[in-house]
């Protein structure tokens, strides 16, 4: 957020031009009053209620406008947020005061709090994290979708599961083609390929009380989307295919500016350097080996 000062200064000039005849300009750069601090904190507290829409609350809208027009107020609000251990992603009418938790903040979500089983079982720990990544990958399938502010992604729980399973199946077929034996060694479970953990886990399961089986992959994805919906990142739109959701502006910001980069850095740290030219990678490879029509998954109609 290094471009904040210039950005907000520009805004405040525009505001001053528009409103100068009827109102005195606010005390920019002057002494900060306790009332200003209260307002800034109030704006941050609105940001902490991620499901609250700016358009639905007049006070929220007013404070957002003040943030965008009054440079000093903006710096004050940013300072309050930083002091609370929050990171400001964007302040705009569409996303509101989009803040997220810093790494060691009291607001941060820890995996062990998120899913109790994940603390004990490394496979569960991986699957819960993967579910969040897969939801984002299906919500923003193309790089353009993640970059385009107006894009709204739509996902279903079963769709996410099917999509990850498909990716796993392709890897399985690839391994089979190369004659690899992917069955892991019994004494080194940590070396088992990640896709196998997912492929192995059952997609769903009957339970006594007709709820989703928590340990199944749709159960894990269902938990992830439910959590994201509570965080104001997704909005539930229906019940078909295990529950359908659409993305919010906040989710796009979070994925684009925070999570994607962090995961990417970790991946680079592991020595994996995925190269992209900015186009979607879900294209068939040039040599005619169609990923979607891989042996086994394809049509055996060559009579």
């Amino acid at each position: 957020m290094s471009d904040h000062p210039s950005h907000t200064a520009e805004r405040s000039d525009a505001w001053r031009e528009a409103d100068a005849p009827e109102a005195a300009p606010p005390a920019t750069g002057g002494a900060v009053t306790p009332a200003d601090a209260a307002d800034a904190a109030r704006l941050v507290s609105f940001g902490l209620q991620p499901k609250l829409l700016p358009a639905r609350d007049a006070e929220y809208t007013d404070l957002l406008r003040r943030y965008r027009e009054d440079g000093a107020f903006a710096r004050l609000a940013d300072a309050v947020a930083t002091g609370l251990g929050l990171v400001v992603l964007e302040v705009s009418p569409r996303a509101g005061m989009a803040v997220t938790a810093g790494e060691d903040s009291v607001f941060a979500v820890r995996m062990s709090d998120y899913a109790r089983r994940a603390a004990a079982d490394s496979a569960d720990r991986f699957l819960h994290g993967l579910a969040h990544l897969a939801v984002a990958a299906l919500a923003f399938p193309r790089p353009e979708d993640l970059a385009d502010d107006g894009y709204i992604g739509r996902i279903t729980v079963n769709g996410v599961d099917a999509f990850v399973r498909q990716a796993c199946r392709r890897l399985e077929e690839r391994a089979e083609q190369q004659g690899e034996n992917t069955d892991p060694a019994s004494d080194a479970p940590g070396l088992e390929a990640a896709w196998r953990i997912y492929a192995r886990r059952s997609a769903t399961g009957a339970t006594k009380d007709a709820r989703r089986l928590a340990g199944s992959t749709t159960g894990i994805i269902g938990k992830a989307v439910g959590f994201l919906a509570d965080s104001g990142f997704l909005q539930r739109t229906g019940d078909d295919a295990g529950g359908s959701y659409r993305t919010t502006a906040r989710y796009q910001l979070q994925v684009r500016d925070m999570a994607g980069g962090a995961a990417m850095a970790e991946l680079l740290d592991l020595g994996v350097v995925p190269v992209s030219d900015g186009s979607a990678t879900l294209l068939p490879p040039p040599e005619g080996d169609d990923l979607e029509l891989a042996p086994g998954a394809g049509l055996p109609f060559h009579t």
Partner: protein
Amino acid sequence: MTSPASTDFVPPQFSAGPRPAQGPAADEGLARRLRALACTAPLHDLDVRKANLAGEYSVYSMAEVALAAIDLVTLTMDFDTGADHDQIVARLMPRVAAQTSHRPAAEHERVARWVLENLINVGSVDRGFRAVYGTFGPDGVYTRRDYDFKLIEEVPGYGGAVYLRTTDEAVNVLVGALDTDVTSAQIAAEVKLEVLISRGRLADAQLAAEQARYRTVQYAETLRRTLEATRRNVRAVDWLETVPDMIAEALDHVADRYRHENAILMNIRKARDEATDPEHKRRAAELVDIVKDCIRRHTQLQSRLLEAGPLFRAEQDRQAFAPPAARAGLDLYGQLLAPLLPLPVEQATRVTEAYFARGAGLRTPASVRLGDLVDLLLTPPVEREHLGAEMPEPDLIATPDDSRFSEEQLAGAMELLDLEHDAPRRLSGLLAEARKRDPELPYLVALLAVHAASPPVGTAYRQGEQRLLFAVDDGTELDDPEFGGADLIVGTALLDAAGMAADRKDSA
């Protein structure tokens, strides 16, 4: 692969890097056979573990019930849904009951459920099985490996329901043709069937037809997966050539199979109708059902194929004709998810952890105020209405009586047709008499007489009727100003009601 150096660099996608040559081919074949063998282990295991069940269950043949269950699930597997849990249990019951007919039905159901749950392996978190086997690597090191598989898996259906599907492993074990090509196996099965039928060996023909049907089910499953995948990613498929080619090919295939199976169907129908041996007749009839089912499945395949085109075009419109974005973003699938999946789980978890830590957003810590807690605990629960909301009085509208004939006319016609059992009459006479009473009545009489030409004997038998109106055509033409056709002989037959009642009791 256990040395730390090899995990240092992992090629970004699909681990396509150079790999050491595989071990001896014999060892690979051994591994394959060991896996095939492992698929049968859960069935043997059932018979071993039945002794541990509380109660005397050793009389049941669990492996037989399990194979029957896999059969049932495979055959009820459709395009969208699988088999229903309770339905499978219900259909397994007769077989279980046949094993010990003197035991209570509740026990039979318990056995059926136990077998089905064990095939799903409800106890494990993966709901699958694991077998351990060892192979020699290319460097001569002996490694123990885990083989994970499922026999029956649970898949989500419409409206949150859970359906059962048999896995490829189960179908392969069941059909007994491990490691074979689907297409060639199907063609082989069908050719075999035709030969068998032409030689009149129906017992073998049925076996072959059942195998053909298993193959057809497997086929449909494969295609369903492909269509699902192509629906998800429009850009992943070559819509210019590959997909239309694929659809055309598949449609050709369906047409081909349809022709083929219709020809078989005609042959077996002939065999069924011409067979004199009742056992042959029964087998041929079963075969007709099986082939009909195959045709039904092919038709289903075809309708799926026809839906694919419009779906692609709609997705194409949505995705390809939007204005391009100003800046390129991160490709979540290609740059994160795809390179992550082939990594060892230990490393992959580091990436997903990093994503989760930054991507899960924030949670405001909850703090409880004692005052709120006391209020909450002391609030009496909301009383719920037992009877629900009051039903509105339904507004009934009388539908106009638009019957062609009135009740009186029906009574008149029945009176006319109430004939002595030893004195049948010609239709012409009845019509003339009816015309004297009412100009409309002959129509009703003629209608009833024509119906009597094919008397509902079965219904009369079941309901224990004593008399039955019948009509016979003896070739005489009807001479009437209003009606044409045969001058039917209409009469009443007396039925042996007491004898039929006794008969029904016997057969029940």
